[in-house]
């Protein structure tokens, strides 16, 4: 589904990704781990299409299409979802209103019929319950005054609502305590499917106890330096990034 070949990305003129290659098939969950500054967030932003992140070399192919040619909203309509590390607060826009606008914008883009307000509400309510997202949160302005855990749960709620084909989770575990983490992981695991691929980006191994990956890639200094099965996570925990990077060199 996702085929990244020799990707070089520069941010503000500085090269961050230096030849990254990665392949993710439908039905798989891949984890990207790496030390701070390795380029993890850069990878997620360039996949979502954020301006300021320039591809200087290489390609990103999504379901046979060149992803780099599409603006962010079109990528979303085609099934790319980025759960952000720091979800943005938008005062003046209620969560419910936002969910309805986004869902229908995506449906319109795909030539599908729009859902009416009642339909959206029903759909949202069903998913909100499992993620412990209250009615009250839905009425509040998007992410305004939400705790870290609440913000992350709302991101996963959106993932459930939009039913993406490729879900990228950027440090979804940051700032969460064990209970919140479990809840979020359950939500993510509940969305696994043979037609869906997931890219879980994390710094710590802990999340991967709950969301068990099929494959782990270690990103350091803008490149994938090591790959392996889920055991690699434990090896990283024991040895630390420095050693793995050294071993790979």
């Amino acid at each position, binding site marked *: 589904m996702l085929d990244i070949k020799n990707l070089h990305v520069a941010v503000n003129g500085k090269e961050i990704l230096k030849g990254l290659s990665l392949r993710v098939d439908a039905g798989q969950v891949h984890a990207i781990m790496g030390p701070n500054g390795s380029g993890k967030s850069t990878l997620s932003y360039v996949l979502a299409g954020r301006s300021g992140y320039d591809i200087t070399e290489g390609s990103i192919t999504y379901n046979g299409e060149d992803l780099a040619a599409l603006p962010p*909203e079109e990528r979303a309509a085609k099934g790319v979802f980025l759960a952000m590390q720091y979800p*943005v607060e938008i005062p003046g826009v209620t969560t419910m209103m936002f969910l309805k*606008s986004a869902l229908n914008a995506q449906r319109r883009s795909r030539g599908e019929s729009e859902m009416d307000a009642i339909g959206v509400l029903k759909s949202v309510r069903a998913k909100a319950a499992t993620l412990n997202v209250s009615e009250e949160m839905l009425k509040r302005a998007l992410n305004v005054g939400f705790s870290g855990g609440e913000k992350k749960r709302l991101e996963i709620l959106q993932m459930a609502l939009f039913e993406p084909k490729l879900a990228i989770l950027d440090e979804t575990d940051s700032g969460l305590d064990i209970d919140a983490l479990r809840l979020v992981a359950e939500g993510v695991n509940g969305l696994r499917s043979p037609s869906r691929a997931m890219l879980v980006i994390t710094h710590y191994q802990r999340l991967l106890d709950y969301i068990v990956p099929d494959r782990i890639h270690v990103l350091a200094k803008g490149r994938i330096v090591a790959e392996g099965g889920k055991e690699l996570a434990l090896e990283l925990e024991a040895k630390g990034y420095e050693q793995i990077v050294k071993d790979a060199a």
Partner: protein
Amino acid sequence: MNPALALPNRRVEEWKYSDLARALGDAGFGDASAGVQMRVLPACVEAIELDQPVRPLWVSAHYGKLKTNAVSALSLAKAASGLALRVPKGQVVAAPLRLTVTGEGHTRLLLVLEEGASLTLLEEGDAAGTRNAGFEIVLGANAELHHVRLAPVSVAVQVEEISVRLAGDARYYGHFANFGAKLSRTELAIALEGEGSEAHLSGVSVLSGNAHADVTTYVTHAVGHTQSTQLFKKVVGGHGQAVYQGKVTVAKGADGADSRQTAKALLLGERAEADLKPELEILADDVKCAHGAAVGDLDADSLFYLRTRGISEQEARHLLIHAFLEDALSDIAHNELRETVRGAVSRALNEVAA
């Protein structure tokens, strides 16, 4: 003395961003009188035309005190017609009173709310006339006024000076929505004269083309334990110019005064201009005063977030601009009036986007 000479130009500090003399030209405001229309007069409200020679006590007691600068002195001198309204003691008027200021020239209004009275007022104006209006509002103890002023987009020069005097525990909620004119100035002078009185001002300006809108407020906390808040949001497209000057004065001894002020402008046109001057003059120490002002563009992170969720760039900008104005609009308590203003704002925003 030629009245036109006395009109302020940009060398007068308070009119620095709004050169009235230049916008009017030699003709000045002229000598005509504009008028005030009112469709329905609620049962308990008393109304007197100001062109009547005999005026009741409640009019002569309060009328004509607003003449502090050349512009208001002129409207007082020249207005041959106008309207005075009174809500008697204890009367709570449920339905909003609607006034429309029409025509060219000068006009005057007086609104007196006696002790414990309560009223919601929608004030509109027609787009055509070059106008200089003076509106005096007197709120008795514990009276409450919700004032929504909707000024249409115009190519004329339209100036309105509003003075509000509050006795103890009186409350004034004013919302000012304007869409620009060749030169549009809304000047508010609020005097919190009694302890426990409160003034809450909010407003939105949505400008496109060459529209100009100046909102200037003077809020004086004459005594302690008074409260004032101001929230003004401006969206400026094209070559529009939005001006906000808000001076808050806390008099000596006015301990317990509490004042907040926020003015923010969103510049969407490349040649759009915003001039903000929130001024504080504090002569008492046991007070809480703060103000904030900001000018900027739409937040890039918010735009990106919305787009990754499938919302097109255009729609995302639209959503964020509406969101920006929302807190100033939600200050309007009366549901129907709020929707009226929201509708006018949406229509004006379409002009900005175009």
